[in-house]
């Protein structure tokens, strides 16, 4: 690097090269600037609510009862949507996790080439379907179906879990597949050589050595589920109660934000930014978790 720089200095093209380099550097830094701006502005807009309503009335309260005409006197507890987010995400991972990881194992270990290609194309296509369309299908197909089967209103945690389960498949499958592909071929051959069946090889050799990658895939899936908005908002019911059963209507942080932003002002609007801030913090935790997991792998290797 430094030697190359020295060479560049010696050249007459120095000035334009220098300008280009600095410009490109600035472009690269837009990512850093971008995330700083996002954090700064979402945090700044959160301050009025925290000031006027108080930390504990937001972070330790389960009452969401905004006052539209006098926002500062409303109740803006976020425990209900927080619990809803966690419940729907958990449901999504329980439904989508096995499907996605199973598909990734299928693709890397079992699939005949043509079938494999078909499934990969399918997953790519699934990734391209807009989230609002998942919500629409959830609303017109899934909710009425669940209403019949469970004999309830159909909206709620279960509907959201199904939708999220399907929506996280592309993310989780793609990353899990990459992880499984990095397992050295010799491991597999050695296992087969010892007389192990294909499943024993998968279960005892391949999955353990791809453990970290699979974990990263699931964590990213969780990240996707936490932040999903339009699809969830359309099927979860947006009620202000804790999820107390599988079919219970409730709300998530994301669904609360889009449902209520409409005519909100003052502390009401600011309280919705607080929920955005919580989502932002969750995203940061996801990144740190992934760094933690992958760093361990790097050290081990």
């Amino acid at each position: 690097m430094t030697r190359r720089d020295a060479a560049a200095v010696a050249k007459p093209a120095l000035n334009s090269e220098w300008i280009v380099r600095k410009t490109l550097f600035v472009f690269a830094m837009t990512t850093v600037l971008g995330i700083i701006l996002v954090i700064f502005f979402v945090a700044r807009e959160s301050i009025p609510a925290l000031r006027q309503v108080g930390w504990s009335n937001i972070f330790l309260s389960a009452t969401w009862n905004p006052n539209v005409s006098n926002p500062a006197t409303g109740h803006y507890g976020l425990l209900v949507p927080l619990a809803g987010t966690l419940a729907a995400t958990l449901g999504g991972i329980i439904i989508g996790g096995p499907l996605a990881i199973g598909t990734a194992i299928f693709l890397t270990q079992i699939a005949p080439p043509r079938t494999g290609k078909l499934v990969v194309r399918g997953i790519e296509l699934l990734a391209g379907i807009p989230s609002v369309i998942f919500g629409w299908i959830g609303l017109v197909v899934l909710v009425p179906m669940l209403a019949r089967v469970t004999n309830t209103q159909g909206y709620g945690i279960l509907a959201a879990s199904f939708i999220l389960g399907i929506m996280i498949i592309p993310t989780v499958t793609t990353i899990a597949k990459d992880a499984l592909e990095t397992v050295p071929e010799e491991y597999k051959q050695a296992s087969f050589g010892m007389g192990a069946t294909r499943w024993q090889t998968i279960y005892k050799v391949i999955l353990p050595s791809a453990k970290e990658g699979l974990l990263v895939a699931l964590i990213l899936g969780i990240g996707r589920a936490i932040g999903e908005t339009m699809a969830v908002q359309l099927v979860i019911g947006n009620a202000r109660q804790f999820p107390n059963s599988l079919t219970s209507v409730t709300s998530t942080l994301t669904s609360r934000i889009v449902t209520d932003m409409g005519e909100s002002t003052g502390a009401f609007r600011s309280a919705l930014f607080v929920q955005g801030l919580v989502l932002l913090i969750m995203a940061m935790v996801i990144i740190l978790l992934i760094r933690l997991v992958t760093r361990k792998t790097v050290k081990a290797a």
Partner: protein
Amino acid sequence: MMGEMHVPARSRARKTTAKTADTVATVVLWALALVCLAVLGSIIGYILVKGLAVVFDPKFILGKPQAINAGGGILPFLLSSIYLTLLTMVIIMPIGVGAAIYMAEFAGESRITRLVRFGADSLATVPSIVFGLFGLALFVVAFGMGPCLMAGALTLALLNLPAVMRTSEEALRAVPASYREASLGLGASRWQTIRKVVLPSAVPGITTGGILTIGRILGESAALVFTMPLFATKAPTSLFSGGAAIAPNLWYTLTEAITPDAQRIAQGEAAALVILILALNLVARFLAHRYQARQGMVG
């Protein structure tokens, strides 16, 4: 004696169980993959069955949206989406590709690149609704743009920057080092090498990434609900005028619209979106295929 007899028997039993487990696992894994395909197939099938008749009605595709009466069309939404896509791409491609060039060609592994990567990873993980809040706070309110084309495009540019950067960087890194060495050996400067040799070879990869980004822009709604109007009867006439893109308008149609034929509009909009995205996928596939074929000929 007994023990000696026992061992092979047990191992045989174990082998049978192992075989059964293997068969069961194979069946289950096939089933999981087929479930994924079936879900995808039924989603796309449902959208097309419900929406094709609507979408191919010229009064729908070329018509004017209605706020209250039935019979509205979606032309301004389609145009808004196209303008939004163009504007976002104009903003994002130079920055994204430029950043990728810096990361792939100029920067080694340093504190700076780690920082840039952390920034990109963070942006990629932040939920799009948070970008919507950010766009509302910065572009719509602080900059005083109001909900408009530019506010939406700037928000989407930031949202999609990491993806453009990553695919471009991958494309640049895939260019063989021998190309660079040859060019540098002929006395070209670093920037000349990048511009004349590396970048052209990476164009197909960058283009494919760009097309996938177009798909994401067309489908994005959460980042746009606060940064662009959800409904407007006219396409934007300037960078700072309103106009509703098709995906956020679909959400509006499902949650707020009061027209009697909202169901039909939703069906048509969903089908239009899916057809656009399928077409983009095909184009991306076609480009990648052509590129591979050419590579094959060279090799």
